[in-house]
């Protein structure tokens, strides 16, 4: 009878087995109650949060009994109790529990206050989630609101400074520019990028993600956390969870828009024409150039003393950035969904650079039948990038602006588009921007579908299949620019295409059971993954008779490409993994992981690797004997150890391949040519990273002050080293060997202090600091203990060497400037010979590091590392009566930059190039500089050889953003709009740095996986911006 109408509904899936157990018991009691038929209290009630929103699924239990119920989707509950008085205990996940005493039947309203969520905070871990208090590894969890400030172009950008130990390096300020993430230091001389996992599916990068779609990012830093990803987790793991709709939630529409204006935060200065004449004539005089030499004619021509152009003004413009996103999310009893659109447009501060991105994301979950859930994620990203060339040694627009004479006009004849011809190898920068039409289009479709079934109250099986399709097309057209200079005398078109297809299939079974004070979880699974990358280069077509942008297609070329090329690269990976965690009485935590992986990159005998980890934690604060319970709300000590693999080397390294090597002209036509261009090593296997981590989580002042600190020791062995080969092997690519050892040791500290709950004035201050000491212990190969990298103008300025930090600069050491001939004569080697006989006063004194009596490349020294010794950030946010304030600063300390621009700024690159204004402070007999040598073109002392005068301190502190927002009250905006917020952001507005170049945030060198940063070739600088935005919720 009544039994059938009892409010026994399918339990919401998130209810823990414990609570479901309670239901069963309660059911039994109800039966008893009916049997006894005593006087009852008929209670109806509604559970709401402090804002009046219903709280579904709250548990309502009579104190001291197992009698109770839970609230429905509208927060309502109904309870019939025996007796005349009862104390109801109401609780729900994420809220502080409360109690009320009921003495009569009828409705009661219960308000639950949102818990200060520290203790119940859930973090995303590999193939699952875990309560934060149960975590035994080093995991940084960053919430979506930190990521989505409405002002950042990419998720990686907004991760900068948000997690200690996670170094985010923006490769440039270019619109749509890429970003590198390095976790806990440079672990290998190969690819250091972490593994990215988006909604459970491995992704090649996260550059295309819309920050507005991100719910949470978890960064798995230590071996124990990342071990479940085994061979892929050696460089750490970044797990992104996107926003989902919630069940029983009415449709919520949100729309955010922001518009901003960008400008360069600083510009270096080049000499005007008259100063240039003065400096260059002084150089010619210093060199004893005969006055009959025609070169003087140029400087004596009064027309060449007229300053006509400020090249930086000509190539820069106010940038414009616009960001829109629209999201619709909601859910019914059995389903939830989320749909979002994003559009970003950025006209960069360099003329002609532009980035546009369109995002579409959809996901939904459906409980098909009880306990069987089907779901999917689907995302489309389309982007268009128009690039301004900044990295080329000569083609770079910023270096061209620096080094072109300023008496040259932009145009000789603007009507006919005839440019002012450049003086040297650097083209007219305006011509270069106008002529180089470099465009890249990208499209990606990423999706996964999954099916999950829960059974026997403790098991969950899940199968998840993901597919990732990416397409990119780049099209480079160079138009002839009349008078534009080098590289602009011929038109050409080249196009290439690449597709990347990857599928991943994960199957897991997990177990979760609490028996008394024992909580055990377990996971077992398998993963298979396979991908293929295919590339087509369509070749270069020349001689377009008409350069109209509409006609920039191969069909309209005069000379057609004679050689297309194409290639493919595929790989597969297979893994089996397991995890067991055990928690006793909220005090003792223990977790173990194991993964066995096979990779197609290694020969069958060396393919499989096993990667174990173990970790433990002790929540001291929950011990009965813990003495400081009043002041210390949480104290946990964690320790972990584990081994991970890394296989990030190119495919097929164990094969000796014969591949296309260009095409010689034989009998007048291009001939297909192939050669063995790499040597194989069939014995290569996984790099292994062994990491130990000790950490502490501390909550003080009722968790108003939270501190997390970690120390780690990360050691990578069997590092795959491409052993340099002598050229007489005749192959370009050396084989890999498992040989090197790299160690990284460091600490991370994060602290947050926030206002007391329920304060009217809320605030939160967060600070992160981390430091890592990196060392290449050995390359492990005979005959070579160093690798030179980073070619700048035909010289390798970077080095990776044994016993030193990876990726330092390696140049001559300048000891100063010779002030007198006596100093030169007195600078002798051990045999009494003058070391720098060609020097004259005003030249650079170099260190004879190897003491062989001559200054040569053998005297180069480690001139400092590009990787910061210390990274730090702090964030202050506050709110009061609708106003919100958020300020974020980030900085680095102890990193060096190789400022390639100095070559022309303070040295004479030649008489065809302009100089920076710093050269005005050069050494002269009357004004004896100690930092800038005399000017000379002949440069018999080789002052301009790359030396420590090029190396600068790259430390900086930058205010990444300052936002002030106001959320309008309901009375102002009516019922239809549930939220209306307006904000103003200042981005990159303050930068404190000693660095003299365009910008201190210089990312990875040329090849974005190279391990040296901070080679300034005139990189696209970060812009400062003023942004205004509005958020609506309907």
């Amino acid at each position, binding site marked *: 009878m009544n039994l059938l109408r009892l409010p026994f509904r399918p339990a919401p899936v998130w209810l823990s087995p414990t609570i479901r157990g309670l239901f069963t018991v309660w059911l039994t009691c109800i039966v008893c109650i009916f049997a006894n038929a005593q006087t009852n209290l008929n209670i109806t009630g509604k559970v709401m949060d402090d804002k009046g929103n219903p709280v579904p699924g709250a548990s309502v239990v009579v104190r001291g009994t197992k009698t109770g119920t839970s609230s429905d989707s509208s927060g309502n509950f109904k309870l019939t109790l025996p007796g005349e008085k009862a104390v109801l205990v109401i609780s729900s996940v994420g809220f502080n529990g409360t109690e009320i005493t009921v003495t009569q039947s009828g409705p009661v309203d219960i308000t639950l206050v949102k818990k200060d969520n520290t203790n119940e905070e859930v973090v995303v871990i590999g193939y699952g989630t875990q309560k934060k208090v149960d975590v035994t590894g080093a995991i940084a969890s960053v919430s979506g609101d930190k990521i989505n400030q409405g002002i950042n172009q990419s998720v990686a950008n907004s991760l900068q400074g948000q997690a200690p130990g996670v170094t985010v390096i923006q490769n440039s300020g270019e619109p749509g520019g890429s970003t590198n993430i390095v976790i806990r230091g440079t672990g290998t001389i190969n690819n250091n990028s972490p593994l990215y996992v988006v909604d459970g599916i491995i992704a090649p990068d996260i550059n295309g993600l819309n920050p507005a779609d991100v719910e949470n990012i978890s960064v798995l830093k230590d071996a124990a956390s990342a071990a479940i990803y085994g061979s892929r987790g050696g460089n750490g793991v970044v797990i992104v969870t996107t926003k989902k709709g919630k069940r029983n939630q009415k449709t919520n529409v949100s729309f955010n828009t922001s518009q901003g204006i960008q400008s360069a935060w600083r510009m270096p200065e080049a000499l005007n024409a008259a100063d240039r004449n003065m400096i260059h004539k002084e150089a010619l005089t210093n060199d004893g150039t005969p006055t009959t030499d025609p070169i003087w004619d140029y400087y004596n021509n009064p027309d060449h003393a007229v300053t006509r152009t400020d090249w930086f003004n000509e190539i820069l413009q106010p940038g414009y950035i616009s960001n829109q996103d629209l999201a619709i999310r909601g859910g019914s009893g059995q389903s939830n969904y989320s749909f979002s659109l994003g559009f970003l447009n950025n006209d960069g501060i360099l003329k002609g650079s532009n980035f546009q991105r369109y995002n579409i994301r959809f996901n939904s979950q459906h409980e098909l039948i009880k306990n069987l859930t089907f779901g999917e994620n689907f995302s489309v990203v389309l982007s268009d990038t128009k690039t301004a060339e900044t990295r080329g040694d000569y083609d770079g627009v910023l270096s061209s602006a620096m080094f072109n004479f300023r008496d040259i006009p932009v145009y000789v004849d603007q009507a006919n588009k005839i440019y002012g011809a450049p003086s040297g190898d650097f083209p007219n920068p305006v011509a270069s921007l106008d002529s180089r039409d470099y465009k890249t289009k990208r499209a990606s479709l990423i999706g996964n579908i999954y099916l999950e079934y829960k059974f026997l109250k403790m098991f969950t099986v899940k199968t998840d299949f993901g597919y990732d399709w990416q397409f990119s097309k780049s099209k480079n057209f160079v138009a002839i620019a009349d008078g534009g200079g080098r590289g602009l005398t011929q038109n050409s078109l080249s196009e290439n295409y690449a597709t990347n297809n990857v599928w991943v299939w994960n199957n897991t079974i997990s177990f979760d059971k609490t028996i008394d004070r024992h909580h055990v979880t377990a996971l077992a699974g398998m993963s298979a993954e396979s991908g293929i990358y295919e590339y087509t280069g369509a070749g270069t077509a020349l001689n377009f008779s008409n350069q109209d942008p509409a006609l920039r297609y191969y069909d309209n070329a005069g000379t057609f490409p004679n050689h297309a090329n194409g290639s493919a690269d595929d790989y597969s990976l297979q893994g089996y993994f397991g995890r067991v965690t055990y928690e006793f009485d909220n005090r003792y935590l223990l977790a173990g992981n194991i993964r066995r992986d096979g990779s197609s990159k290694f020969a069958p005998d060396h393919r499989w690797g096993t990667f174990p980890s173990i970790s433990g934690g002790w929540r001291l604060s929950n011990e009965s004997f813990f003495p400081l319970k009043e002041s210390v709300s949480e104290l946990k000590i964690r320790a972990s150890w584990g081994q991970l693999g890394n296989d990030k080397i190119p495919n097929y390294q164990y094969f000796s391949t014969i591949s296309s090597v260009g*095409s010689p002209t034989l009998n007048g036509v291009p001939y297909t040519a192939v050669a063995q261009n790499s040597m194989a090593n069939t014995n290569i296997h996984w790099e292994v990273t062994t990491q130990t981590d000790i950490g502490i989580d501390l909550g003080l002042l009722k968790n108003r002050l939270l501190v997390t600190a970690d120390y780690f020791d990360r050691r990578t062995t069997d590092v795959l080293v491409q052993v340099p080969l002598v050229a*007489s092997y005749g192959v370009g690519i050396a084989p890999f060997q498992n040989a090197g050892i790299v160690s990284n040791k460091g600490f991370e500290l994060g602290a947050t202090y926030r206002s007391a709950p329920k304060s009217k004035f809320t605030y939160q201050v967060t600070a992160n600091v981390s430091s890592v000491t990196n060392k290449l212990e050995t390359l492990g190969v005979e005959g070579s203990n160093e690798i030179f990298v980073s070619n700048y103008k035909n010289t390798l300025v970077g080095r990776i060497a044994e016993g030193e930090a990876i990726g330092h600069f390696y140049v001559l050491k300048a000891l100063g400037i010779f002030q007198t001939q006596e100093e030169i004569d007195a600078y002798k080697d051990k045999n009494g010979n003058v070391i720098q006989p060609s020097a004259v006063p005003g030249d650079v004194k170099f260190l004879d590091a190897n003491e062989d009596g001559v200054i040569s490349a053998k005297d180069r020294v480690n001139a400092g590392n590009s990787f910061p010794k210390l990274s730090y950030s702090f964030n202050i946010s506050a709110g009061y009566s609708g106003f919100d304030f958020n300020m974020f600063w980030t900085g680095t300390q102890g990193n060096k930059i190789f400022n390639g621009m100095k070559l022309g700024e303070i040295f004479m690159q030649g008489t065809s190039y302009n100089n920076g204004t710093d050269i005005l402070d050069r050494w002269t007999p009357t004004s004896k500089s100690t930092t800038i040598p005399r000017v000379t073109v002949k440069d018999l002392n080789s002052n301009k050889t790359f030396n420590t005068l090029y190396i600068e301190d790259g430390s900086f502190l930058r205010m990444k953003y300052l936002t002030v927002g106001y959320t309008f009250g309901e009375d102002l905006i009516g019922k239809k709009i549930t939220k209306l917020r307006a904000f103003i952001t200042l981005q990159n507005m303050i930068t404190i740095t000693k660095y003299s170049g365009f910008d201190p945030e210089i990312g990875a060198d040329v090849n974005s996986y190279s391990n040296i940063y901070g080679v300034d070739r005139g990189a696209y600088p970060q812009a400062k911006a003023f942004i205004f935005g509005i958020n609506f919720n309907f």
Partner: protein
Amino acid sequence: MKKYSIIILALSMLSSCSKSFLDKEPHTFTSAVFWQTADQAESALAGAYTPLQGEEALGGEEWASMESFSDIGYENDNYPDFIAMSEFRANQNTENDLSLNSYTEYFQVIKRASDVVANVPNITMDEAQKKRILGEANFLLGWAYFTEVIRYGGVPLYDPANPESPLTRATEADTWANIERVLLEATTQLSWDHEKGRPGLGAAWGLLAKAYAYQQKWTESKNAAETVINSGKHSLYPVFRDLFTIEHDNASENLWVLGAREGEYPITGTLYLPNDVWGGAHDEPLGNGWRLVSATQNFYDSYEEGDERKAATVAKRNVDVVTYFGVTDVLKAPNNQSPVVCVKFQRPFEQEYNNLAPGLSIAALRYSDILLLDAEAIMNLSGGGPQNRTVPVAAAAVPFNLVRERAGLDPIAAPTFDDLMYERKHELAFEGGDRHFDLVRWGLAAEVYNNLPAEGTYKPKRTFDPAKHRLLPYPQSQIDISNGTIKQNPGYQ
């Protein structure tokens, strides 16, 4: 249980196919499946030609820059380390990409040609085609080793069967012996007729004549040179300056050329072109020329009256009339250090052009070189030679005067070695640095260089020490990478 069976099925699917699932083979040939067909042999041979298009190889920067070692030319700008070597000031050959890249490119030729020689004999294919392929590969090997030995002395002799072979330098004598061996083999495999860009018998015998001359094996050199001369397959192109045009760059005088391709390589002309020809007097694309190497005033003044090669090779500022970019006028070249520029490879730039690589093939070996080698061998066999420079040798007159008369000069009935030196200097100037290598092999470099007064700051007074400067310093990186198994040349640190 149904769910369990799905999992078990999935598990077994994955594990049962795991072996093949993880086997991914490259989408290019592997050594295991290559070397099967004639087409593969041809493309592997083509692979041995490819490095010659490199920026530093034939007609490239290093090739052109070798002239700065001689008294003919100098390095105008850039490459301070290379300039230090060319001025005999360098103790090392480090941070100098010209040498290292050239060295690397020629060793790629050696490796690839050696692979062809090792593998092609096993391919079942047309025997005539096989012979030609092997002949070309042997010739390329000879050419590459020759290029290296005259710069560095003995170099590693690559042996596909011995992985240690690249790690030690052979002696200079063994390197020469190897050059003779591969070239003699090539003479049994090649034929006189050949496609453009490929060597024929003329090239193989011609290079042999040169290799013998460098070893003072005069009888062998004479025989080799005369095999070319008597074949009747080669002759001098009548107009010297027209030989360096796209129309005639494959004339029979050119025994072997680097096949060129418009828009791609080589950029030889650009390397010599001043970057401002008219000094503002006429429109021109500025900055096209790299003026990497230019000529000395001393060289300009060294031509005999009436030598047609002068105008075809050099031009002087404010004196000579040149044609460039559709204009004919007096050369200005204001930002050249010396007043003289090399115009030998400028013919394709006479008209308005839009390509720095105009498609001019660069001769690696010319018939005039062989004629002069023949004359030189005859002189040495007849009491003349570098130590007897004024002895007239009438027997050398025929090949000698063929070259001389083509240049518009009167024949010499009994030429001396001095006369021969004049011809080689002016015939082969700016074609890869023969002048310097000639002076070194003749033992005359110290005499010529050390007595030359300084010319401006661009050609300072130099001191050539034969014991040390006979060879270039070995590329330092090779010594470093080999961990010292490759040794430096005497006199250098």
